[in-house]
């Protein structure tokens, strides 16, 4: 005789393992006194160039490192290493996002207590990274003026999980008739109260404000 299956409530977050690892990472970062910033954006937003500029500027006064995620190639790490910062590439193969385990492996052998800033450049993707906590203190979502002002409305989840929105390539604003008010409205619609900054990594416009925001986080 077979009995009917019994339904047992278990209630677990599906990404529990990632969350547990991310929490452990966050504790480690806290203990080591390193401020951790992640960057998420679509491919081609100028994330790497922005990070290059940030690393070069911060490297003069702070101990800075970066982990950069891409599906393939070590190009970004090679490019960023020129800033003088400690840089390591994470190649994810076919995986479209970084997760806490990849970050943990990527940090292997690094003395976190010797660092002031650690940057985590996610794989260029505005969808999947939203679900994965990496233990970062600050999540920056980056979008360029060429991408269209409605991007926050199209990808609400990632904007919703981010702490600050950085608009890049502002030097092209005129050429693409970029509407700053529209993007501000759209960001506020999906993430009320989120701070937005507009920068050009090329000309340096707005970079001072971004650097000041980062510096305010470390003693």
């Amino acid at each position: 005789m077979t009995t009917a299956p019994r339904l047992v409530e278990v209630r677990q977050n599906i990404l529990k393992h990632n969350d547990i690892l991310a929490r452990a990472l966050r504790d480690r970062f806290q203990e080591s006194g390193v401020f951790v910033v992640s960057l998420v954006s679509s491919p081609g937003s100028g994330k790497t160039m922005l990070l290059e500029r940030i690393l070069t500027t911060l490297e003069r006064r702070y101990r800075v490192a970066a982990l950069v995620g891409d599906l393939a190639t070590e190009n970004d790490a090679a490019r960023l290493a020129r800033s003088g910062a400690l840089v390591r590439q994470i190649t994810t193969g076919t995986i479209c996002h970084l997760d806490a385990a990849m970050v943990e492996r990527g940090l292997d052998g690094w003395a976190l207590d010797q660092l002031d800033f650690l940057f985590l450049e996610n794989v260029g993707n505005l969808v999947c990274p939203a679900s994965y906590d990496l233990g970062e203190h600050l999540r920056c979502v980056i979008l360029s003026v060429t991408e269209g002002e409605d991007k926050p409305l199209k990808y609400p989840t990632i904007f919703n999980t981010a702490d600050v929105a950085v608009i890049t390539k502002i030097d092209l604003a005129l050429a693409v008739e970029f509407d700053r008010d529209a993007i501000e409205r759209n960001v506020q619609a999906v993430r009320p109260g989120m701070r937005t900054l507009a920068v050009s990594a090329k000309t340096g416009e707005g970079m001072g404000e971004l650097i000041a925001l980062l510096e305010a986080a470390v003693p």
Partner: protein
Amino acid sequence: MHELSIAVSLVEIATEEGGRLGGRVCAVHVKIGQLAGVVKDALAFSYDIAAQDTPIAGSKLVIEEADGRELELVALEIES
């Protein structure tokens, strides 16, 4: 398309919980929020692949939709 990664995590947790409870897991109930960034059909498709060759292979995935960011394993159906 990270539904396969999500499905793999789900299978891991459901297998763990199933092992703890004993018996055969015949269905897995999940709650997926609209803002979770997960496509229901893609998750359902990925689930069968992720469950292959695991103790919960062949189990049915039952998806309940929610409004927020839920990504939750809610319940297991167990045959003893």
